[in-house]
């Protein structure tokens, strides 16, 4: 797989914080993140890509903190997806460097990535809508209870998933 494809989500990952708050520190942090990611992609190493992702996260945090605007869930979802694809595509290219990849494998993998992106985007949209609806219906004290219930359900889900995989 061509390593240049990894640079597409890197660009998206860097663009979201800059678009949120276009300041010099944010640009500098995102440029550093891009540099690390490029180093990892072309040096075929997972470490620099992870470091680049972490730096991009710092830049995004700084952009949110300095922007001081309302909650931007779409931007956050796009940033998270871009970060996931940076890690996955760069790792895919690194892992299979020098190997002959069958065409049907590439087709299936691309479909998987696109499907997963659509699924995650849909899930985030659903959560956002659900959250807004709950916020409109439930009074202030009840929101904390619902948030706690959600956390417990998520924890139970993770626990269930872990147990079933171990027994498989």
């Amino acid at each position, binding site marked *: 797989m061509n390593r240049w494809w990894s640079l597409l989500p890197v660009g998206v990952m860097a663009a979201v914080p800059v678009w949120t708050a276009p300041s010099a520190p944010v640009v500098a942090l995102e440029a550093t993140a891009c540099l690390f990611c490029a180093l990892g992609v072309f040096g075929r190493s997972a470490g620099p890509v992870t470091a680049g992702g972490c730096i991009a996260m*710092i830049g995004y945090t700084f952009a949110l903190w300095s922007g001081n605007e309302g909650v931007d869930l779409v931007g956050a979802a796009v940033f998270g997806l871009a970060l996931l694809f940076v890690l996955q595509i760069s790792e895919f290219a690194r892992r299979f460097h020098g190997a*002959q990849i*069958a065409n049907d494998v590439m087709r299936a993998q691309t479909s998987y990535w696109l499907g997963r992106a659509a699924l995650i985007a849909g899930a985030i949209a659903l959560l956002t809508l659900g959250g807004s609806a709950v916020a409109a219906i439930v009074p202030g004290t009840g929101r904390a209870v619902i948030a706690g219930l959600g956390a417990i359900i998520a924890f139970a889900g993770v626990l269930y998933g872990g147990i079933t995989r171990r027994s498989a």
Partner: protein
Amino acid sequence: MIPRATPLAFAVATVIGWALVLGILADRAELFVAAIPLAAGLLGVGPRTRAPRLELRQEISADRLAEGDRVVVSVHVAATGPVAMIEVLVALPPPIEIAAGSNRVVLAIGPDAEEGWSFAARCPARGRFDLGTVYFRVWDRSGMAVSESRQASPTPISVYPYVAPIRHVPRPVRTQLSFGNYVSPGLGEGIEPGEIRPFLPGDRTRRINWRVSLRRQQLYVTQFHEERSADVVLLLDALSNTGAAPYATLDASVRAAAALAGAYLARKDRVGFVEFGGFLRWINPATGRRQGAALVEALLPAATHFSYVVPQLDRLPARVLPPRALVIALSPLSDERFVTALIDLVARGFDVVVLAVSPIEATRLVLGGSLLDDVACRLWAMEWQARVDGLRRHGLAIVEWHPGTPLDAVLAPIARSRPRSAARR
């Protein structure tokens, strides 16, 4: 196969943790939302179902090759269930290299289906190799989990040394009793005419030389020289090896030994083999095509083995090193123990011819082409030449061979300089 988390899973987990820490510190919900896709990706760790049973089958186009030949390897992978992504690597032992295609592929296998591919490998150097080790990894689509294993089913291939045709070989000074191709000074049954002498009672009438008898008015007979065979022992120096396969001095020596064995066996001589290395290995002299095959098989695994024990030729059984044998030593003359053994052989009265394989060219191929390397090689070449000249003064017949020069052209002068008629047995 037990699935395990990949470095990607740890990288994603690190970024998730970092997002949560920063989200708490900055008190921003967006960072938690940004962590959701990563967490969703991480959920792919570990397959939900047991990995299907895999069966790998390997076929090779030939198991007996010559140096430089290609072998086509076909690999078939079958699975009891669907496999999203399987990475298969056929391990190639050095110095076997890829000639066409790839020995590492990523495949997808449908349920109860079989997938496969082929690639060509080139075998540049002699030896016995096993192509039967296959490594495979079954990857999760998310790349977060992998299970790996290996399958080893012996698939041996033998790569035989290239045998150059040679016409000129050193003639043995002494022959054996058996019939062969060398004209002996001894008189008896043969086709090579020798002396003419007066007829004696008991001489066969068909031997009467009528032309001389009529001229001299007395019966004369023509005598004939006997044709005898010889014993040839190829002594391979495996104490030292210079350069890298397939251009190392030992590889060149093995090729020369195979060519010499073929040439002498074609002349109906008995040919034996002694590997003088970390341990002594030998084949008794014999003749025929079976002996030719045995010699080439014995030459295949020739290699340097470290040992504190100095091998000694006088411990060899007499049938391995017959007293009247022609010993052809193949050596780069780099190890003093081998040189001592040669001098000892000459002192014991053996007819010894040394084919000195120059180590300089093999070393030049390994080194870079810097000026310093060039100067060092030239100095070494002078030292080596001085060593060869010194050994000639000990009475050794030495033929210098710089690999790259045809062996036949190198052997021709010594084949001409040695006596045409072998000494009387």
